């Protein structure tokens, strides 16, 4: 592990829900400009790790370091201020705000300074959102809400983008589109992406490296190509469907 370089490093983190241990001794990292995928079955703790990075729930033991700064005990809004953005699982947009207002919320860190520029980028990526710009978030279809959640995260001009199942509920063409866009952003702006996906095939194809999580423990890690070729991974997560 090239620790001194890592943009995000999660060291030995344990997270609990009440008395239930959801993460045990999780150590992962993401170097600047990397796309890292975290795959694993449902209930393995992938989303919990995403949430823990944001301090909700807080890690009970271990350390989370972002760009050399220990953020383990930092309040969530201050973590967001460090330009870590998250597109949470399950479309947590602001349902009573319009599409535009939702995007403005994402851009609030810069006081909307780059709003026009960034919203154009988001609309290029998701033309559908532009058509719905004055519609309330809650009245969008499920997939459109997912697009909005990703768009809102991008509006924050993040240095680290956490994507929790970005492909959930989206049409195949849009998924392809999103994955291409992530790659593009990563290539052009050096954006670091940490990605949780059920769609393991797509995620590993996109990512540079990957981690496999089982029951709150990281059991495997390696380059995406290695994981894609690994028979165990294939059997557990890839078999039965190419997305």
């Amino acid at each position: 592990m090239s620790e001194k370089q890592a943009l995000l490093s999660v060291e030995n983190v344990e997270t609990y829900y009440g008395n239930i241990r959801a993460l045990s001794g999780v150590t992962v990292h993401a170097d600047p400009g990397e796309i890292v995928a975290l795959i694993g079955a449902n209930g393995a703790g992938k989303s919990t790790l995403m949430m823990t990075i944001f301090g909700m729930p807080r890690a009970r033991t271990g350390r989370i370091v972002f760009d050399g700064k220990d953020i383990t005990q930092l309040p969530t809004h201050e973590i967001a201020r460090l330009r870590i953005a998250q597109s949470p699982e399950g479309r947590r947009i602001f349902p009573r705000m319009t599409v535009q207002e939702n995007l403005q919320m994402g851009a609030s860190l810069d006081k909307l300074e780059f709003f026009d520029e960034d919203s154009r980028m988001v609309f290029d990526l998701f033309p559908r959102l532009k058509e719905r710009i004055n519609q309330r978030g809650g009245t969008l279809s499920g997939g459109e809400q997912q697009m909005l959640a990703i768009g809102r995260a991008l509006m924050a001009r993040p240095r680290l983008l956490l994507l929790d199942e970005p492909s959930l509920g989206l049409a195949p063409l849009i998924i392809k589109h999103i994955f291409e866009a992530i790659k593009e952003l990563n290539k052009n702006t050096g954006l670091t992406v940490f990605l949780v996906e059920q769609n393991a095939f797509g995620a590993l194809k996109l990512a540079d490296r990957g981690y496999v999580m089982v029951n709150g423990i990281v059991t495997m890690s390696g380059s995406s190509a290695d994981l894609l070729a690994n028979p165990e991974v294939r059997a557990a997560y890839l078999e039965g469907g190419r997305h």
Partner: protein
Amino acid sequence: MVSEVHNNPAAILRVERLSMKFGGLIAINDLNFEAKRGAITALIGPNGAGKTTVFNCITGFYKPTEGMLTMTRQNGEEYLLERMADFVITKKAKVARTFQNIRLFSGLTVLENLLVAQHNPLMLSSGFTVLGLLGFPTYKKAAADAIEKARFWLEKINLVDRADDPAGDLPYGAQRRLEIARAMCTDPELLCLDEPAAGLNARESAELNKLLLDIRDETGTSILLIEHDMSVVMEISDHVVVLEYGTKISDGTPESVKNDPKVIAAYLGVEDEEVVELIEQAEAAGVDDITAAVDLLSTEALHEIEEAHPEMAPTALIPATGTPKAKRARTAVAGAPAAKTAPGKSRGAPTPARTPVKPTGATKAGVISNALPEPRGGKADKLILIQGIGPVNERKLNEHGIFHFDQIAAWKKADIIAAEIYLDFDGRIAREDWIGQAKRLAREGRTPAPRKTGGAK
């Protein structure tokens, strides 16, 4: 409609002229389709096409603006769903549904969730609580039956072990299965599933396929399915209906829908791997018209193929169009010394060299203003150095008289539109900033070694 029907050819659900408007927004526009009895009918389409709205109309969550929804039960009774309240639809018309965002009673246990679904028969047998309180045997039997049925479905979905855990504590995939089981506990004749495979991994989706096929084959329940996971839709559906912007664009067997160009364009897109297969097939068969297939490839995929099979580089596969200029352009790609861009000319304000040349011959509407009859000095620039332009597009551009970076750099809005029309790109030129890239490359004059080479020729 070409769909295989299992037992009864009659349609269980007929959707006729269905329209749903929200204020000025038309979510569904004059939609007609049928769901066959005992079959799995899939409803697919881009996000926001109105799929969930169709479900909401069928299950009484919305009253449709127009149209008729006829549900025909096995015993021949017909119900007009658009006239019924939602709870009556479940009770009398026997339609059950699940939701895109899981809506279980997360505080109740798994078993209790399944018992709530059997509320109607339990209430009846308990004489609306009174007999139940008095401990009448009818109620005891009904309660035992309800638990038995719940147990049956828990076994089906592999959750017997967790019957007494709160439903909210189950992992996502298990919650999805529980939702289906809960819907099945109402003994539906039509089961409407809204994205049951969302958030499931490949193995879990395969298990879901099995569960749904079991439901269809063992209970005879007809299934209406909204799903984006093609490994589910194409495997288990008997019939697929495709929506876009609230209207039907395709309808038929999974095979026919999968190959429908309209569906591919609107929804499926094309897998790079599939295109590669196409090319290989075409090559094996000696067919030379594979331009269309190559066009579909992303530049990245082209690059991959080139690395993997230098001997069958796609550029080499592109059929020669016979125009000498295109050939020349390709020679430049194939590793000839870097083309001279004449940096002096391309810098600064328009120079005579860049003045538009009137296109001769068949002038199409929307021809690019600064097209040249042939490359200056007989050598074209390597347009593929611009990200987003692959060999195929380069050839097309050459055919349209675009050979140099500075030509692209000088494009006006109308030119971009014209180029997008014949490249069949929508907004990509702007998104990938071809103009900016071209300007930079034109400025650099001498181009660095090309990333993409045409392979040995």
